[in-house]
């Protein structure tokens, strides 16, 4: 009798497992709201877009605007900065991907894919270091691009990572030109 009970699952075994399974599902269902409450709330998700007048930005000047709590730099690059970025061979880049929100995810990191389409002097970028999130300083470092003071990442004039611990090029946000002097970020 005892032996057959061990082999043959009883109705009691079934109830035991079924109760446990229902309990586990219920527990998971209760835990999820406690985890998900920490994700960005509706107000943070209401993806704000920002319009910026760029008419007054002279060659060699930048402005920084805040978008989604992060600084976005808009730079009117000098001819030397553009040619330095164009001349850099792709094989020298640590991160060969453009990281441009306006282009396909696998676009290569050429200067044309980083700058504004058809307006190579205009350069729009989320100015956040891809290492640990500091704000690199403009027109500094070995490539006269950006230099991050936190742990020494060096970016070129197209915001591409060249040296230091950062793994990726700085991100290009989604943006568009509303007119020649106005852009919309986001």
């Amino acid at each position: 009798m005892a032996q057959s009970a061990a082999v043959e699952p009883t109705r009691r075994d079934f109830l035991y497992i079924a109760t446990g399974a229902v309990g586990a599902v219920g527990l998971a269902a209760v835990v999820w709201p406690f985890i998900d409450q920490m994700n960005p709330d509706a107000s943070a998700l209401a993806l704000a877009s920002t319009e910026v007048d760029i008419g007054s930005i002279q060659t060699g000047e930048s402005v920084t605007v805040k978008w989604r709590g992060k600084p976005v730099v808009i730079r009117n690059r000098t001819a030397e900065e553009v040619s330095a970025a164009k001349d850099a061979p792709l094989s020298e880049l640590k991160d060969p991907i453009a990281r441009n929100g306006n282009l396909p995810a696998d676009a290569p990191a050429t200067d044309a894919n980083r700058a504004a389409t058809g307006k190579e002097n205009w350069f729009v970028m989320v100015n956040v270091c891809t290492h640990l999130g500091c704000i690199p300083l403009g027109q500094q470092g070995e490539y006269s691009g950006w230099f991050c003071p936190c742990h020494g990442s060096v970016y070129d004039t197209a915001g591409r990572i060249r040296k230091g611990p950062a793994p990726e090029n700085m991100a290009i946000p989604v943006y568009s030109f509303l007119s020649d002097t106005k852009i919309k970020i986001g």
Partner: protein
Amino acid sequence: MAGHSTYNPQNPLLKWFEARLPIGGLIHSSFIVFPNPRNLNYWWTFGGILAFMLVAQIATGVVLVMHYTPHASLAFNSVEGIMRDVNYGWLLRYLHANGASMFFIAVYIHIFRGLYYGSYKNPREVLWVLGMIIFLLMMATGFMGYVLPWGQMSFWGATVITNLFSAIPLVGEKIVIWLWGGFSVDNATLNRFFSLHYLLPFMIAGVVILHIWALHIPGSNNPTGVSVKDKQDTLPFHPYFTVKDAFGLVCFLILYCWFVFYLPNYMGHADNYIEANPLVTPAHIVPEWYFLPFYAILRSIPSKLGGVICMFGAIAVLFAVPWLDTSKVRSANFRPLYRQFFWIFVAVAIGLGYLGSAPPEGGYVIASRILTVYYFFHFLVILPLLGLFEKPLPLPASITESVLGKGAAAVTAGAPSAPQTK
């Protein structure tokens, strides 16, 4: 926590209570008659000092909360209000801010004490791991507390540390946004850090109880590392160790007060008196001093994921020490080689701390790489091998013999008036 109790209250009310909740007996057996090795030195007073500091942080923290506002646009000014307007607010805040530093000074001494005297070895492995859990919780608490005044270092420290998780492949980005509750460190982040900063010290208190419980099963280790063999090796906790601990604590408090009253901002950073600005990173970001050795390890690795793995690995390896050290002898006093490697390790840890505060360039980077390699070499190579090759010095036959010498031990063994019987 210390076996059966000899507690016998005479007062009828206490008797009545004890029969229903025997807490008096628990305290009596744990902190009055508990037998401690008679040869404990002052390095053993830091446990009591740590318990005191936890209570001090909770007491000052609870009253700070009565005046602090956890909101990104109000937090900085509320802390300034504590400093300028609240009665004795400056004192309470300086006690809390410097208290955190003193807490870490004590915990580092306590940990190095354990490493020197082999207090992590059989049968105290669980005790050691519980201590490491406390250390982790303390680091989380200190980190989140530093964010609350919402100065520049608060903000950028929080940004850099939370971004560590973005190094995790695939889900890293999602985890960071989940931690932030937004797309950057902001009000949502401050609020949750405040909630957790209030919670974690009470979790620490819980683990401290387990830590003391685990301590009272084998009892304290001692400077010889030799186990207690009989009653004459020990003295009752009260008055011998209550008084010794109190004296150590008072000396420690003098140092604490010296910082609070004469150098209250020495261990902080001037940039934290500038309100958080998400658009400007300070020229030179440094975490609180107690994270610097780990920060140096993070920065020494020229890869993001690699740096994060090494930094967490540097803490993880401490958990494994009981199983990495193969020597049967506990105390470094009887391990001529380990004793030297121990002091080299202390120098390396302090050196890493110094490098963590230096700018991440040139010779500093090279030096941090060398010391980082040595840090891991100490735990992963030296500790396991040393136990196999080192020839330990002869151990004393007992704790009493180590204190009184060979002849005397034999005499007191038979003497009826051993101190603990008085």
